[in-house]
């Protein structure tokens, strides 16, 4: 989900809440603003949700940073012919993006049970592999003329290509972090939710879900969307742009 979509959904939810307070009659489905403020107080006293939200955001960013670093090192170690413009890797790259997050989360739980650290490692490796495929796809889309020009400046064509890969992928760090932050958020939360991890924000969502209290569910989701929105905005703001084919 893009940050724009998240902002639109948050705005719709806010409109519904305001409407529920003043326009829509009292009902069991739409919480009023007063109920929401009570929900915030309850959630704070029972779960300390703000701390957990920050902790989970930190975990997501740590996964992203570690995975990106790992992916960049991996790409630099890969043979150069992987970046040539043939179709050998295209299907694998596509498959990597097609595995639903829920299935990935279920597999992590099945293999590692409630081991939080193992989950963190697996999510990091999984994200790193997705970034590697993403980078290969991107590097293969760069125009050949970059390799042609820069290889004539260097003594060794292979050395020039390695250097060019570094120069092309480093400025795209923010792009990669942004492109993958939503999938990391979703996998982390689904795994935490299924593990009933009380140290994570997933535990807060689980608490609200178990009570099935509408204001609590609303509040927990709203705070989550706000932090995802701002995380995305921050990562997008760091972006400096990547090279694309020139339009003639």
């Amino acid at each position: 989900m893009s940050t724009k979509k998240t902002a639109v959904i948050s705005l719709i939810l806010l409109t519904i809440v305001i409407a529920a307070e003043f326009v829509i009659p009292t009902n069991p489905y739409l919480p009023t603003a007063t109920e929401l403020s009570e929900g915030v107080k309850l959630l704070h006293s029972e779960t300390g949700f703000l701390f957990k939200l920050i902790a989970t955001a930190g975990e997501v960013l740590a996964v992203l940073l570690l995975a990106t670093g790992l992916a960049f090192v991996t790409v630099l170690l890969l043979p150069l012919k992987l970046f040539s413009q043939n179709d050998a890797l295209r299907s694998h790259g596509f498959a990597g993006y097609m595995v639903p997050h829920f299935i990935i989360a279920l597999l992590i739980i099945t293999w590692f049970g409630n081991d939080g650290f193992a989950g963190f490692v697996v999510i990091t490796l999984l994200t790193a592999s997705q970034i590697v495929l993403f980078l290969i796809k991107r590097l293969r889309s760069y125009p050949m003329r970059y390799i042609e020009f820069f290889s004539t400046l260097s003594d060794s064509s292979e050395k020039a290509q390695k250097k060019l890969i570094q120069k092309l992928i480093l400025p795209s760090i923010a792009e990669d972090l942004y492109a993958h932050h939503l999938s990391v958020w979703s996998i982390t939360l689904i795994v935490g939710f299924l593990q009933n991890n009380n140290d994570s924000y997933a535990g807060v969502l689980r608490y609200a879900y178990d009570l099935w209290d509408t204001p609590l569910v609303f509040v927990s989701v709203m705070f989550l969307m706000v932090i995802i929105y701002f995380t995305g905005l921050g990562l997008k703001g760091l972006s400096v742009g990547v090279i694309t084919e020139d339009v003639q």
Partner: protein
Amino acid sequence: MNIQLKKISYSLTASHFKEKLIFRDFSLDINRDTNFSITKVLLPNNYGKSSLLKLMAGIIKPSSGEVVVSSDIKKIVYIPSLPATFNFATVEQNIEHILSFAELKLADVKDEYKTLVEISDLSGYEDHRPDPLSFGFRFRIMIIASILAGAQCILLDDIFSHLDSPTASELKELIEILAQKYSTWFIEV
């Protein structure tokens, strides 16, 4: 300065199963005439103009024959028909990036850099990020950076065809100045 292609044969891989023959026993002897700033190789379209330059630059290897470059040419740089600068970097950073491929630092060629920036009308634009669609501007960066990197011979692959007439004229004027001042040999197809 002289570049010789001796009985070159070269085929281009057109698809997984097909190869397109570009040159068969092709020979060419190009000498620099100092009366002219650019040596122009005239070939009809689709007759392997880019392949010819790439063979001369060593980007592609012939299946048979050899390319002989005279000893006074230490570095040949190929400038493709579309610019290859980094759109996330400023003019100065782009030049630094290009120099790094020749294992050089901007500080090593600081004085020459200032002169070249001045000559090429890039003065005042050092901290400016080139517009991706400003081909003339980007070609100027590539050409002066190539000279700073020590290129004695610069191969221009049909670069003027993507420029409007005034920009092409300005770039040709710049090339004339550079050819005179730095004794750089420009070969264009």
